[in-house]
Structure formats: structure tokens, C-alpha cells
């Protein structure tokens, strides 16, 4: 399937070029040649899913072997495996929430691992601060201006080069000297109207709310786009013109590669939710071979202070959307998942004890799921701190045994090949001995 799709791209891509009358300058860039010969130097992609609002990790991956779990949660605990609505057992102690069933056989195929009791060492229980810390990659340091994924792009070799300087590299891309089907701005893509904090910084990155409308004037007005290109070719030619030039280059590449031509693989159906649409477009971008290395999507609705529910209810519905979306993407990408790792994250976990409104409040450590063809899966990683009162953080929350930066560092170095982890996580001493080993 992999090869078939790639050939289809080359054919359709060529047609698209002819039909759109792409300027000669573009034909000089080696997009097609590189794409066709990409089997040898395949691009790795990391997909980050941010569960904004702090998901209850103890419901996602249930410690059904903990008596304290059931003692603390009278109405919202997910039952022990076996009966109706029970957790799906993974290893005799942990189990998946029943809504995560679509992901269960990825675990069985050893393509998915779970890191539990992971999170930010910051004590904050503010969504804003905690998201900021996780996205900047610098807990408790508010002055960090760029995001960790942006620094990953800056410090990960692209096109066979190690990048000492993001802007010099961007310039290389902008003139089309180096490209594996893409420009610098297409290396980092967020689905959504706004570039998330994680991707902000010196390296170009793009937010795409809707591929269909991406561009100027809603994407359908090529005269307008040409005029703006002309307008931005000024003699001043500083950052303003450079950034615009990069955007035009991205538009051109996307137009030529036409990701929208890729329908989901046979039998794959994405949820109709915003999250499902985001994932579908991420798959289309990856299939079109435009060189996406980091893709980012948000999924919200996790701040379950009231009526959280158990096997069914509010949280179960959100998890259902999450799992069906991820599984659709997984099946849609098929063999391409060999080059893709998908990871979930959320700013903090939730209280072990359920509150008076059938919900949970802001807590501390949480769990992350990581999956992909190259993942050493079928394992639950990390040290389990326990849920007995004296084992809890601040007497109320799941304690932390894995710093989220160790997970991010492992995936960026072992999957994307990020060279300089010290620059990605300033102020943190990355030690490969602390890696949990989900990348083998």
C-alpha cells in the first residue's frame, strides 16, 4: 500500500503541476525527484496529541489492581476487568478504559506502550501555567519564549545536515536548494487556527485550520496569491518578507502535492469531530510527502470537575473520540506508521479521590500513550508510586516518577534523531539512563 500510494502521488502530483501552471522556479526544486526516491531516506514524523484540560489518567489507564483506587472513587471508578463495563486488562494490574478498546490490539501487537505516573515536576495546578510549562519544555520557568517542538526542529538534522542555525537553514529551504518535498515551514505543522506554544519560536512552523482553505483569500484565489507574492517581493526584504516568502513556498508545495487527494484507506472512518478532522488532515499531509516532521493536534473536554462518569458518561465519550480518531489515523497510514510515532500528553492529572460532584479536581502526575511501528510496545513503563494515602503527592494526587522531559527527549532523539537535547531542554540535564525505553 505504501508504494502504491507513493506512485499515485508522483503521478497526480505531476498532473497538478501542469494544471496549475506552477512557475518555472518551482520546477527547479527537486520535489518530485526527492519524493520518488524517498524510500532510501525516509522522513520520520512525530505526531503530538495534546489533551487540553488535564485528562484523568487514572481512568484512561486504570490501576485495577489497586484497592485504594476503588476506595477513593465510589461512583466513577472503572470496574475491574471481566464484567460489563470493566477495564480491558493489559498486565494483570493495569487496564484500558473500555472506550479505548480501539487501541487495545495496538498494545497486543506491541506497537503501543504506556508511561504512567509521568508529568511535570511543577507543583502548579493552573491549567495555563501547566500547559505553558509542558509546551515550553521548561517547568516553572516562565521566561522561555519558544516551544520545545520548535527547538526540536531547530536541533534536528534536516536533509542530511545538522542545523546549527535555524534561520540559515530556513533560507536554504526558501530558495529551494534543499528539500525533501518541503520547505522549512512544513516541517512543523499544527492543525488549528493558532500555532500552539509548543511550536512557536525561531524555526518556521505553520498552523493550518483547514487544508482546503489554507492560503490567502481562502485558498481558492490564485490571482490574489500571486499579487500578494509580488507585493511581498520588496527591496526591504527583511524578516517580514522572509516569513511571507516561506509561507508562499509552503502554499506552493501543498498545492502541488495536493494532500486533499488522499482519501482514507479502505475501511477507515474518522470520527466526525474536530479532532477526527485534524487527524485525517495530518494523515493526508503525511501521505502527500511534503516533509512534515512534527504534527500537532489539540483535543479538549477533559476538565471533568463534575459528572465525569465511569465506563460510560462524559469522559467515556471523550475517550471514545480520542481512541477512534487515533485508530483511524493508525490504520489510514498503514505501513507508513513505521516512520511515525504518535504520543499523547496532558498538562497534569486529576485527584485520586472523586469530589462531591462526581468529578475529579486538578492533580499532578498522569499517563501518556506512545505508539507507532518503531515503538517497543506492549509495556507499561515507569515506576508505579501507588495510591495509598501516604504514597500520594500532597496527600491527594498520583505522585510523579517520570519527568515528561525524559519522554519528550527519548522520542525526539531516538525517533527524530534530535542531536542536541541540551538545547531542546534548557536547564535540564537529559540523561539517557532515565529514558523509559519505549523507543527500544
Amino acid at each position, binding site marked *: 500500500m505504501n508504494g502504491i500510494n507513493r506512485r499515485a502521488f508522483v503521478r497526480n502530483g505531476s498532473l497538478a503541476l501542469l494544471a496549475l501552471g506552477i512557475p518555472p522556479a518551482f520546477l527547479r526544486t527537486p520535489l518530485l525527484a526527492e519524493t520518488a526516491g524517498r524510500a532510501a531516506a525516509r522522513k520520520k514524523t512525530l505526531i503530538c496529541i495534546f489533551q487540553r484540560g488535564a485528562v484523568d489518567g487514572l481512568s484512561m489507564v486504570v490501576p485495577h489492581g489497586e484497592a485504594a483506587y476503588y476506595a477513593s472513587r465510589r461512583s466513577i471508578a472503572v470496574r475491574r476487568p471481566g464484567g460489563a463495563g470493566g477495564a480491558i486488562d493489559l498486565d494483570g494490574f493495569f487496564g484500558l478504559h473500555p472506550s479505548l478498546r480501539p487501541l487495545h490490539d495496538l498494545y497486543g501487537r506491541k506497537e503501543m506502550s504506556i508511561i504512567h505516573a509521568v508529568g511535570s515536576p511543577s507543583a502548579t495546578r493552573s491549567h495555563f501555567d501547566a500547559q505553558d510549562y509542558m509546551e515550553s519544555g521548561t517547568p516553572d520557568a516562565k*521566561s522561555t519564549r519558544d516551544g520545545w517542538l520548535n527547538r526540536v526542529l531547530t536541533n534536528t538534522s534536516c536533509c542530511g545536515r545538522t542545523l546549527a542555525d535555524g534561520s540559515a537553514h530556513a533560507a536554504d529551504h526558501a530558495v529551494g536548494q534543499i528539500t525533501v518535498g518541503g520547505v522549512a515551514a512544513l516541517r512543523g505543522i499544527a492543525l488549528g487556527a*493558532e500555532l500552539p506554544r509548543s511550536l*512557536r519560536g525561531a524555526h518556521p512552523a*505553520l498552523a493550518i485550520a483547514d487544508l482546503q482553505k489554507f492560503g*490567502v483569500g481562502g485558498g481558492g484565489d490564485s490571482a490574489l496569491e500571486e*499579487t500578494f507574492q509580488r507585493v511581498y517581493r520588496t527591496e*526591504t526584504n527583511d524578516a517580514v518578507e522572509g516569513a511571507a516568502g516561506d*509561507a508562499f513556498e509552503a502554499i506552493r508545495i501543498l498545492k502541488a502535492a495536493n494532500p486533499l487527494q488522499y482519501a482514507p484507506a479502505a475501511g477507515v472512518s474518522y470520527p466526525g469531530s474536530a479532532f477526527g478532522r485534524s487527524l485525517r488532515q495530518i494523515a493526508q499531509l503525511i501521505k502527500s510527502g511534503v516533509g512534515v516532521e512534527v504534527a500537532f493536534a489539540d483535543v479538549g473536554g477533559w476538565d471533568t470537575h463534575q459528572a465525569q462518569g465511569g465506563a460510560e458518561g462524559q469522559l467515556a465519550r471523550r475517550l471514545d473520540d480520542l481512541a477512534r480518531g487515533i485508530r483511524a489515523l493508525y490504520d489510514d497510514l498503514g505501513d507508513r506508521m513505521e516512520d511515525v510515532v504518535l504520543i499523547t500528553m496532558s498538562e497534569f492529572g486529576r485527584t485520586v479521590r472523586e469530589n462531591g460532584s462526581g468529578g475529579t479536581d486538578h492533580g499532578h502526575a498522569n499517563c501518556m500513550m506512545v505508539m507507532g511501528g518503531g515503538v517497543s510496545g506492549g509495556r507499561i513503563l515507569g515506576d508505579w508510586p501507588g495510591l495509598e494515602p501516604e504514597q500520594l503527592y500532597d496527600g491527594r494526587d498520583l505522585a510523579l516518577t517520570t519527568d515528561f522531559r525524559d519522554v519528550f527527549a527519548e522520542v525526539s532523539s531516538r525517533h527524530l534523531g534530535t542531536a542536541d537535547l541540551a538545547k531542546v531542554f534548557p536547564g535540564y540535564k537529559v540523561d539517557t539512563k532515565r529514558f523509559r525505553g519505549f523507543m527500544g
Partner: protein
Amino acid sequence: MKRAHRTHRFARPGALIPRRCARVALVAVVSLGALAGARAATAQAPSHSRSPSPEDSAQAIHLLNRATFGARPADIAAVLSEGRIAWLERQLQPDRIQDTAVTAIERRYPYTSVTPQELYRVLEPADGSKGPSPQTVLIQLASARLVRSAASERQLEQMMTDFWFNHFNVFFQKGADRYLVADYERSAIRPHVFGRFEDMLRATARHPAMLFYLDNWRSVHVDSGARRPLAQAQPKRMAAGLNENYARELMELHTLGVDGGYTQRDVVDVARAFTGWSFGPLNAKARSDDAGEFVFRAQLHDRGAKEVLGKELASGRGMEDGDDVLRLLAAHPATAHHIATKLVEYFVSDTPDPALADRLAAVFTKTGGDLRLVTRALFTDSAFYRAEHRRNKVKTPFHLVASTLRMTDAQFVDGRGAMQVLRAMGHVPYMSSDPTGYPATSEDWVNSGAMLARMNYGIDLASGKIAGIRPRSPESREAASATANLDGLTRALLPGVNTDALKRAVIADASSSANVALAPRQRAARAVGLVIGSPEFQRH
């Protein structure tokens, strides 16, 4: 609370209708002088009878580009007529400038002028019913800020409010700050932008919005035995103790600057000095006279001796510990230098000229932090007017939106669409979670996605696709000859800029095969959109 359905019409820049230009200029001149004498003098005795030199014009435009949210033809005429100094002096005394736009804004956006406790009661009705959402409040506050920035005659005050609010940033979305931010801007920032720095510093230090935002309200003497401070909306089970957040940002951001020479020990002792600085809770259960007001809780104050920047604070004292720290920091040379450098970065260049910053710091020190005199020194310094400083700043997204509203003839009906635009560009007022506030330099605002957003904003605004903002619909007569009016359009929106290449591109666009069939009105809108989306319009 009812919302008035009135719209606000911005003064026409005379872009496509040159005839209106004269009227706007007249209106501007009349309303600028609050004193009858000044008005008469301005109207009757223009300082120039001949046309101004190109350099005069260029300097007037530069002053307006930096001291206002957009140099309209009428504004340029006013500066050239009365002279830059006289114009500046008037802007430095905003209370003497009649400002009907602002009165209208306060009526239209009532949440900007109610007290924190009133706002609390609106949002959290005592009968348990559901009040309006915080989002409703935010849209009002941000709309008011936007309309005021675009329409106020007190332009320099609006620019300075943007600068100082960012300097002493608080964040709408952090807990109780949603009730407090409006009052904070109204009482702690605006009255002081041309006052003494120390007064503004003290007003922010005592304001509940800051006390809450930087956690000082819950910073208590470690041995005071207090379980937790009395204030509303407190996080559950938060350990009572010293909180250094305010102390650190006070020195790093508000006064000395990050290299201002303080140590961690200073941070701890400053935090100790401010223990007990708190405010009365807003929630109805604890209704009292001090609700939403500054309160010094002596029993939570650390009365031990302290040392801050080498100065001893004797033991056994109370609130005067914090007051002394503020006085000490306001008068510190590092503060003068830090403030001066930030002003130069914001108003002159992303790479501040150290000599200019030094001169401003000297004025700051010599005048005891008189911000009117410091601001005057900034806009009268010859370095400010140097050619390399002209149009070398990139507008922030907020500035871009405010300047388009100011310079085009758009009607601001409501803030829905404007909020979407600002959110997509990451610059909604009051929504910077970071104590540094929003950045002022281009590296933070210029990237490929942001540039596309700016181009699309121009096109969307001009073609009426932004909810709540109605572009002026050009009468067909003018629109028919949109390209003929292109000179007028570019002169109005980009005064003093060589726009030959831009105009050629707009004309080529209008005559391209795809567009020849466009209705005149669409063609005119497209021209306006291209100019707003152009790189030239992103600079000021």
C-alpha cells in the same frame, strides 16, 4: 445587562473620498483643543502658510506612527499646522483633550467601568442563577481597548496604556482576575501613565489584580501560624507560607531588570517585606467593606529584620516594609535604565540605542521618575527622528487591527470577529498569561503563519468578512474608478511611503483576467485589502 446596539464610526481618512478629508481635518482640529483659547489659536493661526518641507512631513508622520495608532491625513495636517512640540504637549495632558469617543465607549461597554464587586455580582448572581460568561466580559474589555485605541483623541495615552499595562501585566483568565482587570487598568495604570513611576508602581503593588496574579495575597509569614490567608477563590489545600512570585517579578520585570543586581536573598527578603499585603474577598458570603480592596493583614506579616539591596529594614515594623521597598526600587538607577531601555525598544527600535536610553534614564532619575517628562524627552530627542528609526518597527497584531480601524472607515459593531482575528494572531488584550506581557519586538510576531494571517485579515476586513466589523461600502461612483483613487488610498493608509511598486501590483491584480469582471465595489475592497495586507502596512 443590556448591550446598546449603537455602532461606532471611525473618522474617515479620506481614502477614497478626498472631499471628506477637509471636513475630518476640521473636526479633528476643533475637538483637539479643549480650551477655547487653544482652539482659537490652533484654528486661526496655523504655523505654516507654505507647504511643509518633505523632512517636516516625514518627521510629523514618524511622530504619529509611534505616538498614535495610525497617522491619518487629518492627524498629519494637525501636527504640521501646530508643530510637533505643541501637538506633543497637548497629548501629554490628556485630561485637557475632549474625548467624546471615550465617553461613548464607557456607555457601550459597561463592564469596563463597574467596580470589581459589582462585576463579581453580575458574573456570580447571589440567587445562584447563571450569570454571563467570563468570555462576555473579556470581549467587552478587549473591544473597549480596541475601540479606544482606534478612536480616542488621546492617542498617546492609549499607546502608553498599552506599554504600561504590558509592563505591569496581569492575566484576565487567572481566577479572580476576571473581576479585577478592568478596575486595574482604570485605577492603577491609566491615571499614572503621565504621572510618577513610583505612584504607578505602588498602585499596581496594592491592586488586588496584581496581588492575586502574582500570588502575593497568599504569601504569609512562615511562622505566623496562619493556616491560609483569607481571600476568595483560593486553591484547595495550598500550603501556607512565603510566596516569592511577586517579589521576583517586581525586581526582574517591574523595576530593576533581570540584570539589575539583586540576589536570591533579596528576593526572599522582598517577599517577606510584602507578607500581609492582601485584599478583601469578593465572594458574597464574606461581604464586607474591604471587598475587592487592598488590605494589610498585620497578623500575617513577617516582622523580622530584613535587608534589601544592602539596605536594612528594622524589625518590628508592618506595612512600611513594603512601602520602603517600593520607594527603594523606584529610585534605583537600574530601574531608570530598565524602563528607559524598554521605552526605546517599544517606541523607537527593536535594537535600542544605548545612548538614547541613557539620556532617558538620566531624565527619569533627575525628575524622580516623572513619566510625562520622560515621555516628552523620548519624543523630542533627535535620535528618535533619525532616518534609520523610521518605519523600522513591525506592528503588533493588536496595533495592526487598531490601526486599520483607525485609518479605514470601518464600523465597529461588536467584538466577535475582532476577537477571532486577535486570537488567531495570539494577541487578545488581557490574555497574556506571562508576567512579561506581550512582546514588543518583531521576532515574536513575524513568522510564516502570522504573515498569512495578516494578509487574510486585510482581505477579510475589506470585503466585510469579519463579523462585527463593517467596512465602508464605497459608493459605486468612487468604486468604479478604484484604481484612479489608488493614489488617495495609499497616501491615506501609507503616508510618506513610496508605494509605486505596491500600486503597480494592485493595478495588475485589478486588470488580471480573473478580476476584470469584478464589480467595482469588489475591486475597491480588494485594493484596500491588498494595501492592509502589504508588508508596508505591517510596519510603522
